[in-house]
């Protein structure tokens, strides 16, 4: 098995780096498991960095494209924490380079759509769950020397990669190969999906039992 990094460690390092950066940066989290990690880690700080989420509707693509607008309007740097599925939805890098903005993308890459994977597992929808796997992808290969990038496969590399990204005068991608066994801190949301169908999950699975442990609800 390839080496991976705990997504919690990735997001914690990113948020703390943003909070103590000499030039303040905006932190944006896409409406995926990335958002839940960012909320949790920001909540631990005494003073939060400028942090934006697509609360209310949770519109996919909002954080990625919104960070571009933030950079254009303020002239400052932004970090976007996103999943690999969300990145595909709206890749802004060529536009960002074209306008000379400083956009850093942190990709929590586990080659799957994590929340649908967990939700389908909870509903014992095996066939649906099988559709949530994504082709392995290297997001650092953006096709332009003006986009810096680094793949991160263990925690020891994190701080260096983040420091490189935040000192890079342009756009940068940190592609973090995250451990797929770490569940995002989504609280009761996975179990709450039952409300959409008006019925409990059809059968109990090990994943469901894991999700329903009392530290998750």
């Amino acid at each position, binding site marked *: 098995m390839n080496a991976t990094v705990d997504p919690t460690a990735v997001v914690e390092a990113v948020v703390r780096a943003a909070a103590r950066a000499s030039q303040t940066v905006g932190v944006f989290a896409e409406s995926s498991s990335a958002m839940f990690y960012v909320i949790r880690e920001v909540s631990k700080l005494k003073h939060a960095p400028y942090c934006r989420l697509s609360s209310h509707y949770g519109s996919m693509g909002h954080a990625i*494209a919104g960070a571009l607008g933030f950079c*254009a309007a303020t*002239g*400052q740097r932004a970090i976007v924490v996103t999943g690999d599925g969300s990145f595909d939805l709206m890749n802004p890098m060529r536009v960002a380079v*074209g306008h000379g903005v400083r956009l850093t993308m942190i990709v929590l890459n586990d080659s799957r759509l994590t929340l649908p994977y967990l939700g389908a597992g909870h509903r014992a929808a095996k066939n649906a769950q099988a559709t949530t796997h994504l082709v392995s992808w290297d997001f650092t290969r953006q096709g332009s020397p003006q986009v810096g990038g680094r793949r991160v496969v263990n925690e020891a590399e994190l701080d260096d990669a983040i420091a490189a990204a935040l000192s890079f005068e342009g756009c940068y991608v940190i592609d973090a190969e995250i451990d797929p066994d770490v569940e995002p801190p989504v*609280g009761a949301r996975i179990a709450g999906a039952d409300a959409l169908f008006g019925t409990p999950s059809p059968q109990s699975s090990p994943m469901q039992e894991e999700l329903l442990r009392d530290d998750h609800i």
Partner: protein
Amino acid sequence: MTVLANTVAEDGRERTLAERQIELVVTLADLCTRPPRWRGERHQLGDMACAFFLISAANLAWVEAAAAHPHVRAVSVSIEAMGSFAAIEASIATGRLQLVISGSGPGTLGHLWAIAAARAQGASVLVLVPRTPPELAGSNDIQEASYDQPLHVVGAHLYDKVIAMEDVAQMPRIALTLRQLFARPQGAVVQLSVPTNLLVAPCPALPRLDAVRIELPSPGAAAIARVAELLAARGGRPAFLFGSGTVAFRDRLSALVERWDAVHFSTPAAAAIVPGSLGVIGNAAFGDIAKRLRELKVGCVVVLGSRLAIASGGGDDALLPTGCHVVHVDADPNVVAGNAVATWGHDVTFIPSDIGEFLDALERTAPKPQSDTSTPPEKGTS
């Protein structure tokens, strides 16, 4: 600097409608500025009004005018929704109106993905939409938007207002309508659709928008007295729920919490804006917050600037302790209905107010009397 939309006399050059509308956006961005949420370093030119667009034949006149204007940053994007999402965050960060220039026909649909979010986030965004000119309407031309192919009105209910312009003579009234809409503390998302043949037509000077002053909604004395009474009531400590609308006022919130010896928690959009939070609703901390509110016998929760449902993230669990009074402060009265389930069985006082005006008014009330609270102060929560 305010760039007035009626400065035609400065150079005597006749303006087209497209040019006049871009000038109007800059004027409105200056006049309708709200407290910015971004407190970091600024752009070397200060906060910018941006024009986000995906260029096409139908929007060419607007793009040309925006790119030529010294106070507009023209930002081309690769997909329509990217421009609208970008405009949301540019508006939230700077507190200024931002512009989206749409394409015609199917291009107008591409924005809808983001328009719903723009309203929910409280952004100020004007979307300019080109329509097919009358003589071509119904010809089933490519990218047509007309009475025959009404793509420009799809999703109209997602906007705060949709204005379909028919004649240049409407512009003075439209300018004042936009002045009123973008002065709202909760922002506004407006679509203005214009037949392309009008865009290059001459447009006379517009009204002096700086002569129109619009006051922010603020609470009355009786409402503030009632809130002060609830906050100072004997028994458990009061609590504040901070939403995204408080982020622009974060420097004042610690003093607010301290003054009323309150506990506090937040929505995700306002996470950790004040140290010592009980947590963030909408994620795994929901149950912990509910438990702490019950333990502390919180009798009053003041919800400030939150459009997120109070029950968000809790499934069927109740957040509010039995008998708890909810005071909800927001410029948008629609947020009350969003919390109907969470506040079921509770007394609710809704105060339609700008958050800054509310904080000002509450600060002017007499200091909280030293009541005999039965609950000792919570370490690290105030």
